[in-house]
Every structure is written in C-alpha cells, then in structure tokens.
C-alpha cells in the first residue's frame, strides 16, 4: 500500500503539462549508468500485516509492561498521565515543523515558552533553551559554552567520574576535533579531589546531581571554589529529584543540563528523549539551540517567536558554535504537559514516593545476608548494592521470576565488581519490591 493519491488519469495530465511522456523521463539528469538500480526490498505490506509483524517483534522484548523493572542508570520508568499522550497525538503539534513562521506556529511557540519557564524554575535558573537531543548532548554543548566563556584560552574540563559514563563518552566524541582536555573522571575522584584539580587553565567543572549512583553529593561551597578559579560550574541534574532537593541554581550552578525523560517520556529503548539546558541569563547569548522569547505583534498582542536567531547555523554558517537545528520539540511538549498535569503538588508527591520506596527497598535488601547497601551518602531513587555474586548471574535468575534487576556497575567501574545499581520509582508497588527482596534472598542462599 502507499499514500500516493494520484490516479492514472491525473498522472497523465500532469506529465503532459510538464511535457514528458513517462515519469522516468524526469530522471534524465541522473547518469544513465546509475539510473534506476534494482531495489532489493520486500513486497509491500498492508497495515494489518505490518502491525502483526511489529507486534510480534515488540512482544519478543522483556519490557516494563510484563516485568517488574528495577533498572535505571540514566532512563527511568515513571508514571505518565494518560492526558500526555492525548496531547502528543494532536497532529496540529506533531505534524508541524520548526516554528520558522511564527504567525502560524503560536501553539508550538507558546508551549515551548511554557516549557522553558517550567525548566528554568525547576532548575533554579533564569533561562532555558527549547532543548537538545538528550542529556548527554546537552552536556557536550555546555562544554562548548565553557570554552567560549574561557575565550578559548582555558582548555581544561574537569568531569566527575560519577557522571553517567555514556555522557562522558559523548562529550569526548563531540570535542575530538578540538584541543579541549578532559580530566578527573578516570578514577574514583570525589568532589574535593575535583576541586583540587582547578587551575587557571580550567574552563569548567561538571558534577551530577544526583550522581550516577543515585547519591546526593554535598555541593555546598563548590560553586565558590569553581568561580574563584575563574571557571564555570555545570550540574547534570535528574529533574524528578529536583522536585524534592535544592535546585542547582540555588547551589550556584552556571549551567544546568540533564535528561528530561523522567518528565512524561516513555523508555522507548533509549530515545527519543529530551536534553534540557538551563543557564544564567549572562550566558544565554552563547548557548546553542532554539530559544523562544515573548514579544508583541503589530497590534500589540502578546506573541512568541524564536529569538537570538543569529547564533544559529542557518545564519552564522561556519561561525556557529553548534550545527544543531531541530531540537526535541515534541519531547519538550511532553515535559510541558506532564509538568502541567502533575503540577506543584503532584511532582513533589511523585518524587516523595520514589524516595520512600527506594529507601524501603534499600532497607530490606541491606538486611539480607550477603548484600550491603552503600549508605555513605543520601540517595534519591537509586542505590548501590554490593552482591554476593556477579550481577549478571543474579539478573539471569531474576528474569526467570519476572523481575528485571539492577544495572551492573562493574561494566563501567572496575572497582565496583558485583555491585548492582537498583532504581525504584512510584511505578514499583510494595508487592514488587517485596518479591525482589525475596528473590535476592533466595539467590544468595
């Protein structure tokens, strides 16, 4: 099947108007030697057939609809109110493009402006952009801003080893063509060790909040140290945790980035997600990506428009700081609708449920023989457990019982062999948690 509406008669009329006999005549500019190659694709399928095929592929996956999920490590299974999807399926939103023509894009523009406002208040900053691809690329873009703030003279970036390892990989991918040096993350450096690395070559220092291990580090005084060295402080935050804990802005961050997926975006095997990027106003002209601002139309009526456009690639070309053009518009809408529905009280309630359930699970697991929960720092909805066996072996047994166990930290951190990172959210009820605890006990005995 296809979505091409032309009838034979219409096709003939159109070809005649163009002055050719067949559609193939329109391709004479293509070198004859390479024109009309064979396409080895299957025969067309009907809607019913493709749906059946994809249903069977989808059901071959071990997903949160069928399993009790205790895995996070950068992507979290949270409740999404039904209304979010209903708004996302408004095709006036999802079949529109970037709001280049503001007169007929006020819906998208106002929603992004509201999203920016919510993200700025959530992170305690005074501006946000319309988003980046994901948390990792937001961090990579923060490095570019830091280089600009350091006027290209400061080349060093200090990364905490407790930032998501994939984010640290992405940052290096992005900056492999530059002379930026990344330090700090190849061992077990704590916040104080990172501070000791500050010098007059340092452009930025980045930490995660909560960190990759779910812990809330004590960041008091960090901003003063970073600023007195002439660098900027970037905090990689989990937005769900920010409903409870002090905002990165209050802690003195210059830029706050992170993964917006917890805000109403499904797991979807890792994408599309939402990279949020918030900043203090003084850096806003240096940041990449779309930004929506308020203005008025000719009649003085309030309206919204993409602003500070001369920073962007389509105008600045090779002098632009980033090549980004589209963002994650629909995902920003998702977060905006989610935050509206949950609201001030709902988001705090969700975060509180995460906290209590994770701590209940941690307490129960800590009491089991052979398992030790790391309690060295406060944590939010994720915690580390030292296990009596390799994590992969435990997970193989858990999956038989309908449970997707925690993440194997030994893959990324050699000193954390047999250490499982367990995430518990508001979607895990007590029965699921108790069954995880019972199975872990059974496995260790």
């Amino acid at each position, binding site marked *: 099947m296809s979505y091409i509406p032309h009838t034979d008669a219409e096709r003939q009329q*159109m*070809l005649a108007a163009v002055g050719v006999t067949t559609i193939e005549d329109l391709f004479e500019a293509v070198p004859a030697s390479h024109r009309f*190659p064979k*396409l080895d694709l299957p*025969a*067309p399928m*009907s809607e019913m057939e493709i749906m059946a095929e994809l*249903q*069977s*592929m989808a059901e071959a*996956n071990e*997903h*949160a609809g069928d399993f009790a999920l205790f*895995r996070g490590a950068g*992507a979290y299974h949270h409740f999404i*109110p039904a209304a979010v999807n209903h708004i996302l399926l408004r095709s*006036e939103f*999802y079949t*529109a493009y970037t709001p280049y023509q503001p*007169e*007929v*894009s*006020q819906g998208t523009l*106002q*929603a992004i*402006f*509201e999203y*920016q406002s919510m993200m700025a*208040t959530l992170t305690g900053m*005074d501006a946000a952009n*319309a988003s980046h691809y994901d948390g990792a*690329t937001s961090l990579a873009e923060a490095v570019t801003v830091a280089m600009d703030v350091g006027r290209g003279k400061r080349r060093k970036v200090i990364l905490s080893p407790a930032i998501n390892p994939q984010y640290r990989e992405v940052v290096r*991918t992005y900056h*492999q*063509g530059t002379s930026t040096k990344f330090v700090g993350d190849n061992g077990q450096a704590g916040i104080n060790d990172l501070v000791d690395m500050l010098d007059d070559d340092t452009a930025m220092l980045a930490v995660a909040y909560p960190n990759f291990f779910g812990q809330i580090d004590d960041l008091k005084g960090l901003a003063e140290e970073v600023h007195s060295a002439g660098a900027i402080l970037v905090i990689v935050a989990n937005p769900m945790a920010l*409903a409870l*804990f002090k905002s990165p802005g209050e802690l003195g961050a210059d830029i706050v980035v992170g993964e917006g997926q917890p805000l109403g975006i*499904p797991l979807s095997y*890792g*994408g*599309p997600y939402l990279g949020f990027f918030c900043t203090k*106003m003084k850096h806003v002209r240096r940041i990449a990506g779309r*930004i929506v601002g308020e*203005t008025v*139309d000719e009649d003085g009526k309030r309206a919204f428009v993409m602003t500070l456009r001369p920073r*962007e690639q389509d*105008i600045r070309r*090779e002098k632009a700081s980033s090549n980004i*053009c*589209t963002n*994650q*518009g*629909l995902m920003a809408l998702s977060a905006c609708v989610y935050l509206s529905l949950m*609201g001030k009280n*709902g988001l705090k309630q969700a975060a*509180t449920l995460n906290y*209590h359930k994770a701590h*209940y699970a941690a307490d129960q697991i800590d009491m089991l023989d052979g398992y030790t929960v790391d309690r060295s720092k406060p944590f939010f909805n994720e915690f580390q457990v030292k296990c009596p066996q390799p994590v992969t072996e435990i997970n193989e047994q858990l999956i038989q019982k309908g449970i997707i166990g925690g*993440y194997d930290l030994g893959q990324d951190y050699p000193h954390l062999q047999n250490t499982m990172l367990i995430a518990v959210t508001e979607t895990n009820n*007590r029965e699921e948690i108790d069954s995880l605890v019972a199975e872990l006990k059974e496995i260790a005995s």
Partner: protein
Amino acid sequence: MNEPLIYDMSVAGRTSALLPALDVPETPLPKDLLRDTLDLPEVSELQVMRHFVRLSHLNHSIDTGFYPLGSCTMKYNPKINEDTARLPGFAQLHPRTDDEGAQGALALMHQLQTWLAEISGFQAVSLAPAAGAQGEFAGILMIRKYHQDRGDTKRTKILVPNSAHGTNPATVSMAGFEAVELPSDNNGDVDLAALRAACDDTIAGMMITVPSTLGLFEGHILDVIKAVHACGGLMYMDGANMNALMGAVKPGELGFDVMHYNLHKTFSTPHGGGGPGSGPVGVNDKLKPFLPGPVVEIVDEGSDEEPPLYGMKMPEKSIGRLKAFYGNFGMHVRAYTYIGIHGDSGIKDITRHAVLNANYIRVKLRDTYKVPYDRICAHEFVLEGHFEGVENVHALDISKRLMDYGIHPPTNYFPLIVPEALMIEPTETEDKATIDEFIDVMKKIATEAQTDPDLLRTAPHTAPVKRLDEVRAAKQLVLCCRPVPEWAAGD
C-alpha cells in the same frame, strides 16, 4: 484573544489525584538538602486539556493544510507509525535491557540498517545519530578519523558548495576542519574549474547535497566525485533530499563514501514541531570501522529452527557515541513501518511522484514567477519571490500572504544564491486538486502584488497573530514567565 499562559490559570491549592497512596513505611527526608518552593502550575486535567488543544489550533500542520516547505519534506505522516511506535514492547522497553531481552528491538534495528543500506547503496549503516545535523557531524568525524588512522594529518579542509545548508559549514567547524566555500556555475551546479583548483592534499573531503538545494540533480556529479577522490579526499552526501533519489539512483553506487538519512523527511517520521528527528549514516567499506556506535550485528546466525541472535557492538575504530543509548529508537520503529508498508514498488513510487509534483508546479508557475534555473527539477525547485516593476514586495510578503489562503509558506531566503528565494517542495502525498489550488493561489498573489501590494505587505490578515516585533524579542529577551530567583538576580 490570547490563550493565557498555563501559569495564569493556576490556583494555589488545586491538586490532581493521579498517584497511588504510599504503600511502604516512610523514611525521614534529609531536611537541609531539600528545596523550599517549587514553582509549577496548579491546574486541573480539564484545564490542561483545553489549554493545549486551544494552543494546537494556533498551529499550521500537515494534517491541517498544504505545507510545501522546501528541503523539509513535509509529507503525510501515516497514523499507523504512531501506533506501532507506541506498542508496549517498544515504548516500555528499558534501554539498559540485556541484548537477549531486547531481541525484537534489535531485529528491527538490524533490518532497518539493512534496508537503508540497500536503498542508498552502502555497505553499512549506523542508526545512532539523533538528527540530520548529528548525522552530518558523524560523517565528518569519520572522514577525520579515516585520514588520521592512515597517518595523513595534513588534511585540514572540507569543501562546501555555496548552495549548501547552513548545517554543512557549521558541521565542518564543529569537527575541527576549515570550510572552503565553492562557487556555483551558471547552471546552479558546482563550478568544476574552481573545484579542481581547490583540490590538493590538504582536502579531507567534500560535503554536497544531492540533488542540490536548488532542487537540481548535479549535472556532472561523477566528475565532482572523481576530482575529490583523485586528491585523496572523501565524499559526503547530505541526504536531506533523499526523497528525490529512491529507486532512481543509489549514492553509494555513484561513489559517495558516506551520507546521512533524515528519517523525519524521507521516511515520514513526524517533524514534531521541531524534532525529534533521526539521522542515520550509511558508509562504504572504507568508513565502516569508524561508524558511530553502537550498531546492531548478528552475533549468531541461528538455524532453521532458531532465529538469529542480535547484539549491540561498537565498531572497531568508532568515532564514539553521539548520544546516550542507541539513537532515537521510536523513530526507527516508524521508519521501519513506513518502509515495510511501501515495499520495493512503493519506495520507488514515492520518489517518482515527489518529482512529478514538483515539476508540475514548476511549469505551471514559470510564466508568473521567475524560475532562475528552469530545467527539469527533482523533488523541489526554487523561484524568485519578487516582481518587476513592483517595489517593496518581497518573498517574505508572498509567504505571509499564503497564510491567508491556509497554505504554509515555502522555505524562504534559502538557498542564499537565489535572490528572494522561495523553495517549494510539495512531496508525493499531495493530490492534484491541492496542488492546483496552490498554483491558483500563487497566481492570485502575483496579481494582488500588482493591484494591491499593501495586501501582501501587511499580511497575514487571518492568522492568529500579525507580524511580530522580532527586534523587541531579542532586545527585551523575555524567555521565562516566572520571577527570577533571588540567587540568580543581579548576574
């Protein structure tokens, strides 16, 4: 009347009852780490629904009207795509699931990699890039690493024609190269003499859009590729215009070393009001080891009884990860659905009808508007949005007037090499009646420009708002509707 901001509807104390009660004992919260206030709206679900539905009415979209936005391929987004991407086995699949538990997703990605490679004649595909711009970035980083791997470090420049998308030169700079702009000749093709003069052992490669942003198939594309290869450079094809090529020519067979696909253009995944996109990259054997990862490979071929086992692998000399996890998987599901539905014959038909629609509009408008490169075009073409003898009527005015007729403006002022450019791309999914109506409206606007030019200059008249004060937006810089927090004030 303005739609109020969601914050303006907020009433203190209004709560929603979306979440279940706490079913475990409480743990004391660490008081000195907690925040004092959370400034989010307090509104009901009905208020939220009405607000966003009303906002949606303020948008022009493909599902509400014709959207001939050149180079963006605003084709119909089939609804089945939305349903397949939301199947629980995909939407609720955690990205850290062990490969054994994600075989359905991996099989889908592997098949999509194979189909995309087949459609454009490449040996391997990575689905990792999150958008076209990221695909471009990946492509140029691969070229960089390829030369480095061979110990060839003096190649510091990438050639870019002056008709290129802005992302091309921006990508070149981002990857640490210098962009060298090439002029176009009188036919709108790359100036071959200038190209040959620029080719030497400092050239790492060239980025070129095929067909070009003028909507023209490069007349001597094989000569261009040959010249760059002869000096040791690699060829990057910007695949933004792939909708003009499927079943007509395979870029890999022409000699391109690498290209990116825009799943949100060619393969109908929705544009989403500005993303998410998806920008896979295809490469030949030369660049395969450098692909961004991870990519999906067959780990065990399986047998008649057992399906193959798929796994995620980082290519041997990969440029690295471009984002967390594996690209925009939800877009991969939609593109798979689209290719599966069309199959071999349908995919070819897409391109043929996209090209037919564009040429039909071109010949119907060529007597009314100046078409600067007036020859058989690909899936889009560029005309000049101004009229002899009419002062101060610009492409922008024509664009705004189109809104009054319920049509989204074409891309305007791009490519930069055409004055007052209007770039028109109808796509294959528009029927003849819609296209004829567009042609009539464009002619009518041309008449209005003569008889009542102010009608154009003051347009739009029927859109939700009139023209905006963009200077004020940039000057006053109101980016957030909430009060600035005390710790941020004064900076």
